[in-house]
C-alpha cells in the first residue's frame, strides 16, 4: 500500500502550507514523519532543552508560554510549532505544554530546512508572523476589486441617446428633451450616421439665454460641434477622467463609427454609489411609513451590491448603518407629525451596532429616550410613551425586531430625563455588578438619531468625569471584556454553537466581532474619547498613547478581516434567499481563510489578556 492512500496523507494535503507541496515532495514528507502522543498537561518542549522536530498538531491542543513578554499562544489541529527552536539551532526558549491529549506528526529539522529553501510558500508561512499573515490576507481580499469604476465598462451604464436633425428649432429641441426627460440631444447628419454636434441643458443657459438667440432658430446655431466620444469598452474610470479633464458631463458612446448611446456624469455617480445613497434618499422622500417598510426590505440587496462592488468592510457597514438610521429618523419624524410637536426637548438614542456604524443586516432594536430635566411624568409621560411605542412598533415592522432584553424607549426604564440617566451611569460605575456592566457596555455606545443631541453631549460629559474619578471601573469593564472568548482553532477548539434547527456553526458576531468591540470600548474609555465606532476607537486609543501602533494595527486588521468574512457569509445567505445571519459554517471557509481567521482569533485573545493584565493589576 502506498503512503498516499493513508488518511495521514489526506490530512497533510489539506493543511496549509503543506497543500502547496507537489506530490513527490509531499510523499517524501509523509514518509519522513514520526508520530508521537502526549497526554494533557505533559510538557512537549522544555526550555533549555533541544528540539529537532517541526511539530504538527494532528489532534488536541497546546499552549506556548512566552517568557519574554508573558504572552501565551494556543495552537490546535493543523497548527505547527517547534520551528522557532529549529531556527535557533535547536535551543528551546518557550515552554510548550498540552492543553488536551494530543497527537503530533513530527517532521525532521533537516527536511524543514530543505523545504524552507526550496518551497517559497513553506518559507512564507514559517517566516511570517501571524499579524503579517493576516495583513497580507486582508490585502489579497481587498485587492480583488479596488475601484469599481475600473472594473465596470461604459457599456454597463449607457442609456439611449436622444437624436435630432440639425434643422430642428431650439424650442422644439427643448420640448423634446423635456418630454423624454433627457439632459442632452445629439445632432446627426441627414444619413443619421455622423454626429454633428451635441446640445446639453447647459447650452440653453449659456448660449440661448445668455446671448439672446431666438428660440425659433435651428439647433445647429447653439450646438457644440464634433463632441468628444467614448468607446463602450472603455472602463468607467476612463469616462470619469475624460469628463473631469474636459469639464463636460455628457459623453456620446460610439462603437465602430456608429452611435450606441449616451453616458452622463450622473450615470457614473449612480453606478459608483450604488443603492445606499439612493435608498437613504427614497426613505427621506417617502410619504408614509408603509413605504418605509417596503424600502427597508431592500437592505439585503443593497448589502449584496456593496460587497460585489468591493468596498471596504468599514464603508459597507457605515452605509448599511446610515440606511438604518434614516429609517428610524423617518419613523420618528412621521410619528411626531401625527402626535404633534414634543412638549419638551428630547434626544432619541440608538445603541449597539447601529450606533457604532457596524451594522450589516437588520438587528434587534436597541434604543432609548433621553428627556430634558424639565420632564414632568404626569404632564409629558403620555406623549413620550406614545411616541416610543409607535416608533418601536414601526421599527419592528421594518425588520428591526423588538429587543429581547427590552432595551427600548418603549420601556419606561429607558425613557427618562437626563438626571435619571446620569444616576444610572453613576450606579453602574460605582457598583459594577454583572448586570450593571452589561448595561454599561450597551449604553457606552450611544448615538443621537433625532432631537436635541446636546442632551447626549451633557450626559457624555458627566459620564466621562465619573470614569476619570473611578479608574477602578475600567478594571471591571476589562474583566467584562473577557466574557466572549474567541474560539482557539478550527477543528478542535472551534466552538460551534448549537442553536435552533441550524447546523453547528460559528457565531462570528459573538465570538469574534463583539470581543473586539468590548476590548476597543475599554481602550476608548481609558483614552477618554467619545468615539463610538470600533475602528475609530482603536485609532483614538493609539493616538492617546493607551495602546501601541502595532497593537492598533493588529486589532484593526483583525476587525477588518472578521467583518469581511462575515459580509461574504451574509451575501451567501442573501443569495440563497435566507436572512443574513452571523452563523458561519466552517465548511464554507477555505483552509486559508480558516487559518487567517484563527490568526485573528488568536490576536483578539492575546489582547483580551493584555486588557485584563493592564487594568486588573491588584484591583480585582
Amino acid at each position, binding site marked *: *500500500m502506498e*503512503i498516499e492512500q*493513508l*488518511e*495521514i496523507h489526506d490530512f497533510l494535503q489539506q493543511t496549509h502550507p503543506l497543500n502547496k507541496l507537489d506530490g513527490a515532495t509531499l510523499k517524501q514528507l*509523509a*514518509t*519522513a*514523519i*514520526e*508520530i*508521537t*502522543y*502526549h*497526554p494533557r*498537561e*505533559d510538557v512537549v518542549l522544555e526550555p533549555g532543552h533541544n528540539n529537532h522536530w517541526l511539530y504538527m498538531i*494532528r*489532534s*488536541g491542543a497546546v499552549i506556548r508560554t512566552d517568557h519574554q513578554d508573558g504572552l501565551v499562544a494556543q495552537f490546535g489541529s493543523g497548527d505547527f510549532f517547534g520551528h522557532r527552536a529549529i531556527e535557533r539551532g535547536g535551543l528551546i526558549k518557550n515552554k510548550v505544554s498540552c492543553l*488536551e*491529549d*494530543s*497527537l503530533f506528526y*513530527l517532521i525532521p529539522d533537516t527536511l524543514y530546512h530543505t523545504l524552507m529553501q526550496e518551497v517559497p510558500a513553506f518559507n512564507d508561512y514559517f517566516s511570517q508572523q501571524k499579524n503579517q499573515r493576516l495583513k497580507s490576507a486582508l490585502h489579497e481580499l481587498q485587492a480583488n476589486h479596488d475601484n469599481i469604476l475600473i472594473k465596470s465598462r461604459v457599456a454597463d451604464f449607457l442609456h439611449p441617446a436622444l437624436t435630432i436633425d440639425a434643422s430642428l428649432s431650439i424650442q422644439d429641441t427643448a420640448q423634446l428633451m423635456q418630454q423624454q426627460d433627457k439632459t442632452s440631444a445629439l445632432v446627426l447628419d441627414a444619413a443619421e450616421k455622423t454626429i454633428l454636434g451635441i446640445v446639453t441643458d447647459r447650452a440653453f443657459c449659456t448660449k440661448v439665454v445668455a446671448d439672446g438667440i431666438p428660440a425659433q432658430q435651428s439647433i445647429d446655431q447653439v450646438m457644440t460641434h464634433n463632441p468628444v466620444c467614448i468607446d463602450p469598452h472603455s472602463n468607467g474610470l476612463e469616462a470619469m477622467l475624460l469628463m473631469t479633464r474636459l469639464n463636460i458631463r455628457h459623453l456620446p458612446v460610439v462603437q465602430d463609427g456608429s452611435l450606441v448611446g449616451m453616458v452622463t456624469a450622473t450615470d457614473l455617480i449612480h453606478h459608483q454609489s450604488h443603492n445606499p445613497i439612493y435608498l437613504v434618499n427614497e426613505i427621506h422622500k417617502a410619504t408614509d411609513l408603509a413605504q418605509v417598510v417596503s424600502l427597508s426590505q431592500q437592505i439585503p440587496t443593497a448589502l449584496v451590491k456593496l460587497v460585489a462592488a468591493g468596498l471596504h468592510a468599514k464603508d459597507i457597514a457605515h452605509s448599511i448603518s446610515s440606511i438604518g438610521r434614516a429609517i428610524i429618523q423617518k419613523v420618528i419624524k412621521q410619528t411626531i407629525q401625527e402626535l404633534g410637536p414634543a412638549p419638551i426637548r428630547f434626544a432619541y438614542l440608538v445603541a449597539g451596532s447601529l450606533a457604532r456604524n457596524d451594522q450589516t443586516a437588520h438587528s434587534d432594536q436597541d434604543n432609548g429616550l433621553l428627556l430634558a430635566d424639565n420632564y414632568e411624568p404626569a404632564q409629558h409621560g403620555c406623549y413620550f410613551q406614545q411616541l416610543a411605542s409607535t416608533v418601536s412598533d414601526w421599527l419592528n415592522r421594518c425588520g428591526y425586531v423588538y429587543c429581547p432584553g427590552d432595551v427600548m424607549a418603549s420601556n419606561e426604564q429607558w425613557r427618562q430625563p437626563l438626571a435619571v440617566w446620569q444616576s444610572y451611569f453613576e450606579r453602574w460605575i460605582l457598583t459594577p455588578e454583572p448586570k450593571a456592566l452589561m448595561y454599561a457596555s450597551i449604553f457606552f455606545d450611544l448615538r443621537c438619531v433625532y432631537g436635541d443631541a446636546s442632551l447626549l453631549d451633557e450626559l457624555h460629559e458627566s459620564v466621562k468625569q465619573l470614569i476619570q474619578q473611578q479608574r477602578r471601573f475600567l478594571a471591571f469593564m476589562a474583566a467584562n471584556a473577557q466574557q466572549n472568548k474567541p474560539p482557539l482553532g478550527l477543528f478542535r477548539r472551534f466552538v460551534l454553537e448549537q442553536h435552533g434547527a441550524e447546523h453547528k456553526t460559528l457565531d462570528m458576531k459573538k465570538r469574534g466581532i463583539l470581543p473586539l468591540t468590548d476590548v476597543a470600548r475599554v481602550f476608548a474609555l481609558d483614552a477618554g474619547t467619545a468615539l463610538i465606532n470600533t475602528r475609530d476607537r482603536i485609532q483614538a486609543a493609539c493616538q492617546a498613547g493607551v495602546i501601541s501602533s502595532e497593537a492598533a494595527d493588529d486589532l484593526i486588521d483583525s476587525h477588518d478581516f472578521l467583518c469581511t468574512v462575515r459580509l461574504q457569509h451574509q451575501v451567501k445567505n442573501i443569495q440563497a434567499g435566507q436572512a443574513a445571519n452571523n452563523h458561519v459554517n466552517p465548511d464554507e471557509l477555505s483552509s486559508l481563510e480558516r487559518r487567517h481567521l484563527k490568526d485573528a482569533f488568536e490576536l483578539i485573545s492575546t489582547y483580551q489578556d493584555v486588557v485584563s493584565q493592564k487594568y486588573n493589576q491588584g484591583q480585582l
Partner: protein
Amino acid sequence: MFDWFNHNKRLLQHALKHQPQGALKHYLTTPLPDLNQPALAVDYLVLDFETTGLNPYQDHIISLGYTHISQGRIQLKQCRHALIKTNKKLTSDNVSIHQITDDDLAAGIDVQTMMEWLLTQMAGKALAVHYQKIEHDFLQQLSLQLYGHRLPLCVVDTLAIERRYLERQNQPIQPNQLRLFNLREQYHLPRYHAHNALEDALATAELLLAQIKHRQRQGYPLKLKDISH
C-alpha cells in the same frame, strides 16, 4: 512473569531442535526484548491482520499491515501493507468490511513470504497488537504449519492492557468499550474512517503510545513486563 519467561524458553528450546534456517534462525537467535526495560524504550512491531474469520484452524489471513515504534515514536517510513494469497473464496459478508476483492487477493504474497518478512521485522522486538487472539493465534498456527513448532513471542495487547487496568480498578466493562475505535476515542485520538490492516496497525500503535504515556503521567514508571503477557 516467571511463567512467561519459562514458556518462551521452552518454545525456543523446542524450536531450535528443528534446525531453523534463514529468517527463522535469525529471529530465534535474537533475544526477545528485556522485560525490565522502560516500556517507551522498547522497539515494537505493531501488527494487524485482516482475516476471513476468527478461527485460526479454518480461517485465512487476507492482508497484513504493520508499523514500527522506536524510542516512543511511530515510524511512518517503516509502514508496510500486503495482501496475502489464499485459496479460500471470500464470502460477501467479510468483503463488505474490508473492501478487498478476489482479484486483489490474487496479486498478493504467499504466507511463506509473509512469514519470512515478519520474522525479519520482529527479531528483537515486542509484537504489539489489539486483541491478540487474532494476530497471535494466527501467527502461531501458521508457524506450526510451516515450521512444525510455535514461536517464542513477546506480545503486548492494547485490549488486554485496558482490560487489566479496568479490572484492577474494579470497574465494570461495557460490551463494546474495549474495541479499538472506542478506546481511541477515550484517549482523544482522532477518528479514522478507513478500515484496512495498515490503518488499523497505525491506530493500534497510536493507542499503545497513549496508554503508556497516560500511565506514566499518572506516576507509573512503566516497564515492558507491566504491559506484556
